[in-house]
């Protein structure tokens, strides 16, 4: 009985988060509506056959997700832009190498490319990053003007809290919240055991949440 109830809650939670993601990202991400996996795979086939419109549609479906994930593991907007651009180029020019796998969506393959591209780029700089508080924060003036003050405050708190996590934790939470991957898909991207991913995800979510709240309310008051 307890097990059934918890499964029901887990399913409900998963459904709620997934619909919330969809609502949020269609609100912030312009007019792109998320497509179902079948439609994505049809686009992949069409793009492989040389249909440019299908390639463009695949690009629009994934570019924001890639940026959200990459921004969570990079040090600046400029880095995130470059990694997103390189990732999308690799995706669009390597579609012939993609093989659909049961239980893993196309987006997981895209995120594998994104994480690998980001790792290659940032590994070269890693020795510079000694203290998380000294992480280079390169502001994008134009970006600041385009976001409202509340969003900017939350964004800064999130980025600061993320900078205090280790590389693996950053990747796991970024893949979960930036790209809506589930634990099994994240495990395939990184690669790790799904049980480990779940454990790290839960632990990191609690830490990250507490840190963001502390940063948003330094005096301990309610926002």
């Amino acid at each position, binding site marked *: 009985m307890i097990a059934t109830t918890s499964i029901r809650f887990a399913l409900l*939670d998963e459904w*709620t*988060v997934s619909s*919330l*993601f969809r609502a*949020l*990202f269609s*609100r*912030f*991400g*312009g007019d792109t509506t998320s497509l179902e996996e079948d439609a994505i795979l049809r686009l992949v086939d069409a793009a492989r056959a040389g249909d440019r419109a299908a390639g463009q549609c695949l*690009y629009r479906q994934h*570019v*924001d997700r890639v*940026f*959200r994930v990459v*921004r*969570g593991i990079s040090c600046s*907007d400029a880095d*995130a*832009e470059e990694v*997103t*651009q390189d990732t*999308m*180029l690799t995706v*669009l*020019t390597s579609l012939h190498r993609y093989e659909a796998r049961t239980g893993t969506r196309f987006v997981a393959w895209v995120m594998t490319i994104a994480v690998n591209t980001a790792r290659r780029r940032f590994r070269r700089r890693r020795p510079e990053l000694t203290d998380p508080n000294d992480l280079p924060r390169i502001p*994008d003036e*134009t*970006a600041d003007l*385009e*976001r409202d003050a509340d*969003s*900017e405050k*939350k*964004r800064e*708190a*999130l*980025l600061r809290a993320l900078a205090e996590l280790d590389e693996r934790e950053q990747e796991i939470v970024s893949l979960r*919240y*930036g790209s809506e991957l589930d634990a099994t898909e994240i495990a395939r991207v990184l690669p790790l055991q799904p049980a480990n991913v779940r454990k790290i995800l839960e632990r990191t*979510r609690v830490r*990250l*949440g*507490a840190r*963001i*709240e502390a940063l948003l309310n330094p005096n301990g008051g309610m926002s």
Partner: protein
Amino acid sequence: MNEIELAVTWATLEPTPRQRQRIEARVRRWLDARDSSLAAEWLGLLKVNPIAGLGFAAVAASLMLIATPLSWLAFSLV
């Protein structure tokens, strides 16, 4: 902070319209360059700047015309 609140906060990492434009412009430029042939590149150059483009084309063509027999002669002498 629960899963939903964290998802809401994560939405602030969305790229801005300007960032989206920059990324798309770079990807498009790269893909167009990859897809276009050498002849298309030359035609594009002519479209942008017809006079200088024709000048470059003329210089390139005459260099090829002169260099080919000269290099043949040089190789035959060696």
